[in-house]
């Protein structure tokens, strides 16, 4: 279903005309109102009037997480505080969080984009949404909450945590849609199983999962275990929150970017060159309509590629491929780039293996070591040592074959890898470099 037929199916030329008009207004505004942007533009020798075509976007400097940190907390806001109606923040891996603000119109835009995402995933007004994204500074919970209300469906603001109570609500309230991180979805299904309950008996039919990269294999696992259509949603607080892009239920092939509100580019993270459609690199996003906290060419650190082909769902919007990791999630082990999602894909090839895993990187005698801890479940467990060792060796061989890196696989007990209710921590790097 298409929520906003007019904007989601605009012919390319009309869409680009809107983008250019909005981009030029944005550049004028941040240049006038945000000293940090003015300084960056001046350092790059570019002025607002230089932006004549969409391609001129490439003349503008990138914005990075460091820029946001340098202007902590409100230095990059483009409106006075009395116009800001909401603050969100993302936990930084180091030091201070990244703080973002929204005007009333920003909240309305965001709500509409989440409503569009829900509609793309096949959610209707009569659906009940069990929203298990965390409520609070994190954009997931409130972002979905407002989107559901905008769509006119019913939202259950469960937030994260208290898994057993969540199972009870899933059973008693009969929600038809689940929104949370993909790892939490699997965690819910595990806990339900422990309680002797089967997700297939619940009324859920759609799951909209995001906030962490996940693989196609994990989608299949979730769909099988939870008995629903699992769709990927993308967003980040620096750009807006969930709803920047979403998969459609019709194709499940790439996430449609709301291009009337954002311009996406893919760059080579090393040379910073803009890459053509189809090539994989770092996703860079410019917000076109944000008032309180616009960003110009924000480097997301997420790895993706763009596909301009029209989709069978009827949208003309560019699609981004599912994230294959993050530039800063990537680990380099003995010179080999390793993304947790690649390891995940190898693990998921083994029938019945639980997708709960963790990578431990360490350095022993100047040599990097990679240990892959993966949980054993009933499907993979055997009472014969030989079979369990074959399982370990088999995975090690596949990792070596597919990724070109030697890893030690260690089978661990179920639930021994910590579950996060936000983003799963896939990598523990103990190297002292």
């Amino acid at each position: 279903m298409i929520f906003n037929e007019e904007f989601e199916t605009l012919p390319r030329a009309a869409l680009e005309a809107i983008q250019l008009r909005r981009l030029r207004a944005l550049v004028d505004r941040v240049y006038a109102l945000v000293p940090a942007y003015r300084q960056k533009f001046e350092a790059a020798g570019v002025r607002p009037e230089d932006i004549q075509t969409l391609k001129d976007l490439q003349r503008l400097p990138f914005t990075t997480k460091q820029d946001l940190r340098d202007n902590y907390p409100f230095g990059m806001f483009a409106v006075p505080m009395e116009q800001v109606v909401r603050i969100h923040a993302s936990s930084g891996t180091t030091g201070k969080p990244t703080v973002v603000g929204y005007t009333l119109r920003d909240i309305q835009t965001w709500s509409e984009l989440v409503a569009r995402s829900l509609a793309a995933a096949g959610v209707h007004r009569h659906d009940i949404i069990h929203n298990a994204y965390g409520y609070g500074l994190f954009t997931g919970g409130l972002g979905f909450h407002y989107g559901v209300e905008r769509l006119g469906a019913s939202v259950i603001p469960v937030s994260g945590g208290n898994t057993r109570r969540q199972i009870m609500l899933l059973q008693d309230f009969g929600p038809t849609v689940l929104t949370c991180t993909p790892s939490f979805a699997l965690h819910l299904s595990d806990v339900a199983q422990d309680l002797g309950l089967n997700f297939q008996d619940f009324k859920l039919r759609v799951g909209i999962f995001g906030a962490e990269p996940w693989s196609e294999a994990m989608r299949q696992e979730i769909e099988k275990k939870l008995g629903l259509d699992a769709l990927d949603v993308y967003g980040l607080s620096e750009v807006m929150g969930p709803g920047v892009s979403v998969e459609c239920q019709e194709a499940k092939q790439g996430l449609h970017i709301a291009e009337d509100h954002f311009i996406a580019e893919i760059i080579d993270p090393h040379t910073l060159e803009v890459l053509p459609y189809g090539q994989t690199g770092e996703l860079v996003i410019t917000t076109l309509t944000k008032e309180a906290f616009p960003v110009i060419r924000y480097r997301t650190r997420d790895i993706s590629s763009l596909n301009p082909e029209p989709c069978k769902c009827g949208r003309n919007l560019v699609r981004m491929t599912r994230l294959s990791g993050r530039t800063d999630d990537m680990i380099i082990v003995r010179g080999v780039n390793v993304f947790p999602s690649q390891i995940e894909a190898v693990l998921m090839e083994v029938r019945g293996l639980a997708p709960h895993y963790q990578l431990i990187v360490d350095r022993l005698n100047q040599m990097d070591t990679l240990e892959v801890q993966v949980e054993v479940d009933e499907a993979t467990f055997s009472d014969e040592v030989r079979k369990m060792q074959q399982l370990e060796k088999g995975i090690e061989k596949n990792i070596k074959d597919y990724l070109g890196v030697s890893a030690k696989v260690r089978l661990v007990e179920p639930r021994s890898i910590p579950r996060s209710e936000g983003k799963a921590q896939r990598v523990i790097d103990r190297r002292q470099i």
Partner: protein
Amino acid sequence: MKVKQLSVFLENKAGRLAEVTKVLGDAGINIRALSLADTTDFGILRLIVDQYDQATQVLKQHGFTVGRTEVVALEVPDRPGGLASVLQILSASQINVEYMYAFVHHSGKNAVIIFRFNNLDRAIELLQQQGVHIFKGQEVYRL
């Protein structure tokens, strides 16, 4: 003829074995026989208990991965060459012992040994033909 055996996956961490036995003990379950196979990283605990279904349930409730295997319990003469005579019957027919362990309890003059074979049904048939005493499941749980 077959005996139900539980197996539990254990990481090599202090206290895990104690936890399994405590969970069973608290549930009033008696362990009839057990063996622990271990590697550097993990161990596999194999158990025969008096209340199989209840043991499986409480272990699962406590988050353990529980497997189920069928094994046979044989009466082996408690004298030199006793075990050899039983194994001879099987090796002559190319049946491999995956693992075996002795029962905690003695039954009369003979030992009770638990076996896992690669071909359980064929092994049972051969042993019966040769007159080896195979315990019934119910007998073992109550021994």
